[in-house]
């Protein structure tokens, strides 16, 4: 059942992610990225991570993509000149280096190194208490300090964004 859904979703992820870098128009790239986010949410559901799937849709597909589209429309890119290539070999070298990276990552995965001690949250146990409840239980006990530091990070981001985008303070 999982395999039945995995391969179509994986193909959609790969195609839409490739289209992000192939489209010339940034709006088309943004919409393609939106499709990638939604299909990744589908993969999270296949992995029994329902809460992560929900915040993937809400935070990424909702908040971040709206921010992207908003900026694209704010910038009025019609006036901007088309991307032209400064260095003719740039594309070839970029793809070459990225494929080398893929070879490295692939060889690590192929070697089958997956260390780590097994935790206590098996699929059945998480299903019994509920995915969101289990995450909340961990987040507000063991991970409370990182959680609070995150709030400081968000505050810094808010202040930074306002300072940067104001014309004069």
């Amino acid at each position: 059942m999982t395999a039945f859904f995995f391969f179509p979703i994986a193909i959609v992820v790969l195609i839409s992610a490739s289209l992000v870098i192939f489209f010339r128009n940034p709006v088309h790239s943004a919409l393609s990225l939106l499709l990638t986010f939604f299909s990744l949410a589908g993969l999270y559901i296949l992995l029994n991570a329902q809460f992560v799937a929900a915040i993937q849709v809400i935070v990424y597909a909702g908040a971040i993509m709206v921010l992207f589209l908003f900026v694209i429309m704010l910038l009025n890119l019609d006036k901007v000149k088309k991307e032209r290539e400064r260095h003719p070999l740039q594309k070839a070298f970029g793809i070459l280096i990225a494929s080398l990276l893929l070879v490295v990552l692939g060889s690590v995965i192929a070697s089958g190194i997956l260390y780590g001690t097994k935790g206590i949250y098996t699929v059945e146990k998480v299903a019994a208490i509920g995915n969101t409840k289990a995450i909340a239980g961990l987040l507000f006990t063991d991970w409370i300090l990182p959680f609070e530091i995150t709030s400081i990070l968000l505050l810094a981001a808010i202040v930074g964004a306002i300072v940067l985008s104001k014309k004069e303070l």
Partner: protein
Amino acid sequence: MVPISYYLILSAVLFTIGVIGVLVRRNAIIIFMCIELMLNAVNLSFVAISKHLDSLDGQIFVIFVMTVAAAEVAVGLAIIINLFRNKETINIDEVNIMKW
């Protein structure tokens, strides 16, 4: 049942697509989108390994990664708007004043 290595391979390919985008494209907004792609690839492997190890720590880390991504996008897009305001371009080849 899909083996975890399939998810990891998908994550690696997705990350590579993001790297290609950052290296090849010159539009600052598209480079930002490719950084989001790379963050999503990492999130996917976090969740996959979290399931593989019967642990929820990976999913909690995904929440933190998303928070950092949101903060990064807010500040980064503010920088891009400022860049456009000052130089009328978002082509990163033309923004080379700090390049040696």
